[in-house]
């Protein structure tokens, strides 16, 4: 084997390994979503929430093989300019299986995990009242059709938002978070709130049954983000590139990711006055807010942008409540709201950064506010319209929501043939205005009264 052949071979090996690690880390996002949503549910819906997450992973992965990958390769020019070039992405092509000269599988795998992540963003928002089957149809469309068309437009080396408008979105804020947030908003409008969530126009807090589990879930998602952002980098034997072709490094991403996490948590803490759910969601909000320019931002600027993003999310959440939209985990606020905010900010902060020439397309325009804001609007519409229309169709067929009797009793008593806590769980109850009781079935709580 000549030195050049050896180098080419090693590039394939390292590419495989690089994205293999990325995939493995991204699976912890799903472990995180699972824990997060189990904790956010009431105890009568815990296993239904878990099953929904598990099945999301399965259905999106499978359908992403059947047709999702093809959409990415077919739709990068608006609206269908490259269908002929996508035959290699059809599920019966020579590249879509074990092939000793192709690394398509590892890229497909990384994108499949992105797809499943996008599908999972919808999952938490619709907890406790959506039919699992309806949810799986919706998440399949979101994860294996809508997101990947958004990725073809907004996260592709030859995507039309880049070639025509000079688009830049390193960390997939638009095609993952914004598209999922907008799709979710459309679904929530048709799904309606949980019973008892709004009474007489007033929002009533429905407490998560296990907030510590929710917080642990978000920490797992933070770990997974390092795999996610690793997958946003294109490895070559001459260095790393963003998906838009500009050179970058993992060092750059380390600065922005960690400062984004820190800023978002601090911002959300301040804004929510230390409310744990919003504070830890602030980490996610921070990373999403800086995602468009995390290969380019100064770390302190990333912190500032992330902190503002973290501050915004409780306000986004309260704004949705005014319209009686019940988003159980704040998915629209955190993913949709912060992605849109981050993209708008990036248009001004990154204004003037050049794009690199692309074979066959010339040099795209430099990054600019109109391109970033216009692209954000395009992707938001791309997410919202199918989410709204598809859920409306399911609603008309009476297939979107579970019956009220089942909702009141809990899904774990009907469609899930198991119970999460057969021996019960300790509870904390408010006895009266000035006393708190910690109790379970095994001792007399009147002996344990704590005056506050």
């Amino acid at each position, binding site marked *: 084997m000549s030195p050049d052949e050896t180098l080419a071979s090693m590039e394939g090996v390292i590419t495989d390994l690089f994205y293999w690690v990325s995939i493995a880390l991204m699976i912890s996002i799903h472990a995180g979503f699972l824990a997060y949503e189990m904790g956010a549910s009431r105890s009568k819906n815990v296993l239904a929430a878990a099953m929904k997450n598990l099945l999301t992973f399965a259905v999106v992965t499978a359908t992403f093989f059947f047709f999702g990958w093809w959409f990415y390769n077919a739709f990068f020019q608006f609206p269908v300019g490259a269908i002929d070039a996508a035959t290699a992405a059809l599920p019966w092509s*020579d590249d879509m299986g074990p092939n000793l000269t*192709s690394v398509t599988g590892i890229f497909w795998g990384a994108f499949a995990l992105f797809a499943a992540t996008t599908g999972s963003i919808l999952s938490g928002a619709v907890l406790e009242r959506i039919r699992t089957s309806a949810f799986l149809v919706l998440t399949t469309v979101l994860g294996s059709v809508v997101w990947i068309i958004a990725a073809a437009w907004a996260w592709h080396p030859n995507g039309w938002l880049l070639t025509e408008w000079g688009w830049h979105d390193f960390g997939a804020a638009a095609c993952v978070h914004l598209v999922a947030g907008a799709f979710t908003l459309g679904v929530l409008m048709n799904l309606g709130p949980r019973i008892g969530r709004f009474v007489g126009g007033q929002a009533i807090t429905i407490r998560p049954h296990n907030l510590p589990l929710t917080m642990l879930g978000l920490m797992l998602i933070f770990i997974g983000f390092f795999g996610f952002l690793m997958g946003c980098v294109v490895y070559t034997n001459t260095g790393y590139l963003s998906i838009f072709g500009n050179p970058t490094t993992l060092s750059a991403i380390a600065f922005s990711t960690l400062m984004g996490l820190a800023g978002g948590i601090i911002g959300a803490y301040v804004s929510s006055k230390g409310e744990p759910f919003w504070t830890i969601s602030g980490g996610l909000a921070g990373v999403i807010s800086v995602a468009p320019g995390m290969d380019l931002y100064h770390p302190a600027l990333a912190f500032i942008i992330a902190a503002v993003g973290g501050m915004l999310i409780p306000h986004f959440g309260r704004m949705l409540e005014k319209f009686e939209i019940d988003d159980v985990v704040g998915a629209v606020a955190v993913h949709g709201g912060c992605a849109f905010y981050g993209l708008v900010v990036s248009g001004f902060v990154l204004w003037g950064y050049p794009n690199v020439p692309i074979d066959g397309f010339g040099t795209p325009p430099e990054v600019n506010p109109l391109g970033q804001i216009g692209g954000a609007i395009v992707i938001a519409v791309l997410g919202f319209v199918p989410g709204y229309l598809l859920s409306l169709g399911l609603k008309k067929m009476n297939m979107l929501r579970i019956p009220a009797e*089942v909702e009141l009793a809990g899904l*774990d008593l009907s469609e899930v043939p198991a119970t999460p806590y057969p021996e019960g769980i300790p509870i904390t109850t408010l006895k009266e205005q000035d006393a708190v009781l910690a109790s379970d079935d095994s001792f007399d709580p009147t002996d344990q009264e704590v005056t506050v």
Partner: protein
Amino acid sequence: MSPIDSWDGATAVFTGAGDVPLDVLFVVVAFAMFIGFLVTMVRHENHAYEQMIAHTAVEKGPAVEGEPSAY
């Protein structure tokens, strides 16, 4: 189903490689199984909801370990 006689110069090595009708058949059957899963889930949901509303057990026979008692 081997597409190769030798590993020398082999490229696509998966079962049925190069035989497009066979590969399409694999995909069609796998996709049909996926649709079957969704149909099964809808039927299970309808049954479970009806049983719960009727205050009857979702599954026949004694509860298995970890299964909730009949509603």
